[in-house]
């Protein structure tokens, strides 16, 4: 355990991954309660298009992915609220179109040496000093922001009309939430990759929801589960030479099924 800690890249992975775990732990609660898991996973896949645009244009791929994801989430909302298209349909269209765009762009660029694999499956152990520093500052800022709007977010999630009559600026709060979610998704790509990012967005909140019906406890539990999976996954992958993103996601799934069984046992016991 202590041997791993002496490596700079493990330290960076633990700090960056740990902060991201806390952040996605909070976000996950609202993703689960608002039932927008599919939106989260759709935005993550769409981010691949943004990554490819970054490769082609020379912009930092994470930055272009964040901007592109925001554009896509607004696109999904615009099409599904103004048009006559259901939201899940809009998500399905935008996410496949964006992935297709990414595949075609990367095909044109002929830069197969780019670490595409890292974006699809995560590369937290390859995180640089600069990325760790900027990422950590951004995540700490977002954690504070999301805590500051958590009261309003909770009420909007409970019932939007009640929130409206209470004078809450629903559009503003939702925008801040979606921007935070998009940033969490794109930074999470570094940690577990596009394919597995849904695990971080959905499983911590879903697991916590099985174990408690008190909101504050649910948020804390969700953060603990995310943190345990991310740090555990980094250590396990280091010692057993496993893919980090896959290990983290599997640990999350293990926590979920343990909670599921525990909850069944407790309920049957009553």
């Amino acid at each position, binding site marked *: 355990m202590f041997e791993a800690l002496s490596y700079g890249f493990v330290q960076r992975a633990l700090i960056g991954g740990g902060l991201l775990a806390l952040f996605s732990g909070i976000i996950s609660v609202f993703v689960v*309660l608002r039932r927008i898991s599919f939106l989260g996973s759709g935005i993550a896949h769409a981010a691949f298009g943004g990554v490819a645009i970054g490769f082609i244009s020379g912009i930092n791929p994470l930055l272009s992915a964040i901007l592109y994801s925001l554009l896509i989430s607004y696109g999904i909302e615009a099409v599904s609220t103004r048009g006559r298209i259901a939201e899940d349909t809009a998500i399905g269209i935008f996410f496949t179109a964006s992935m297709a765009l990414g595949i075609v762009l990367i095909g044109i660029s002929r830069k197969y040496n780019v670490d595409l694999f890292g974006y699809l499956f995560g590369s937290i152990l390859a995180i640089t000093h600069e990325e760790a520093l900027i990422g950590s500052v951004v995540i700490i800022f977002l954690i504070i922001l999301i805590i*500051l*709007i958590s*009261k*309003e977010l*909770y*009420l909007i999630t*409970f*019932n939007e*009309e*009640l*929130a*409206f*009559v*209470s*004078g*809450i600026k629903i559009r503003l709060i939702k925008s801040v939430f979606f921007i935070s979610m998009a940033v969490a998704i794109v930074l999470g790509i570094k940690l577990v990759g596009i394919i597995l990012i849904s695990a971080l967005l959905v499983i911590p909140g879903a697991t916590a*929801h099985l174990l*408690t*019906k*008190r*909101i504050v406890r*649910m948020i804390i539990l969700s953060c603990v589960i995310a943190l345990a999976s991310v740090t555990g996954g980094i250590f396990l992958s280091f010692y057993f030479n496993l893919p980090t993103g896959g290990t983290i996601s599997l640990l999350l799934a293990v926590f979920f099924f343990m909670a599921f069984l525990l909850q069944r046992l407790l309920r049957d016991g009553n």
Partner: protein
Amino acid sequence: MNAIEIEGLSYSIGNKEVLKDINLTLQEGRFLGIVGPNGGGKTTLLKIILGILKPSTGTVRIKGDSPINAIKKGLMGYLPQALRIDLNFPATSINVVLTGLYGEIGYMRFPSRPHYEMAMEALRTMGMEELAFEIFGNLSAGQQQRVLAARALVGHPEILILDEPSTGIDVVGQEDFYHLLKRLQKRLNLTIIMVSHDIGALTGYVDEMACLNRTLHYHGSPVHALTEDVLSRLYGRKVDIMLHSDACEKCARLKRE
């Protein structure tokens, strides 16, 4: 002063006219019941008064102000018909009531002790104190209604707007609820607007009755709302109404028969 003034209001979705040419004035401190068939536009009218929906034509004034400004001033408390939240939503009764103070508490601040005391007081008023720490989703429909009423009242609004659920609440419990509202109306000089399906049960409690089916077929004293002429216009055919009071002529007639 008038609590509510509605002039020439209509509301359409696409080509479908949901509300047509509504004019309605309600004085401060009055209890208005709105009745009418399902799909008659009752909930839509409430949502327009609350500013949730914008009318296609016409104006709504709440104490002389627009609904949006009235909301900013915290003038209105709202109890929606159905919440469509799942049983497992992580909220206790007191959590739900506290959300009624979120606007007042303001952004980037959190509820503190006085807010908890206000929430407890509101729950006590509705007789729900003992269920303060129960999970909201586990309560019966009637209990949820009382918790939501406590939520609507906790911020001390001047106008209380209630949309009664059509199912899941027993008659006896509902009459107690009306009783409670009536007492609150007197004590706090509240203006109350309540949408209900049960015209008979409501009659004994409201000061005024409005009968709505796309347009207002009647607005006035509750007893005169029960004439066969008004009711057949409202529901499109002849209906029998059972009053839950001694004033029920039909019931007496039925008893005689």
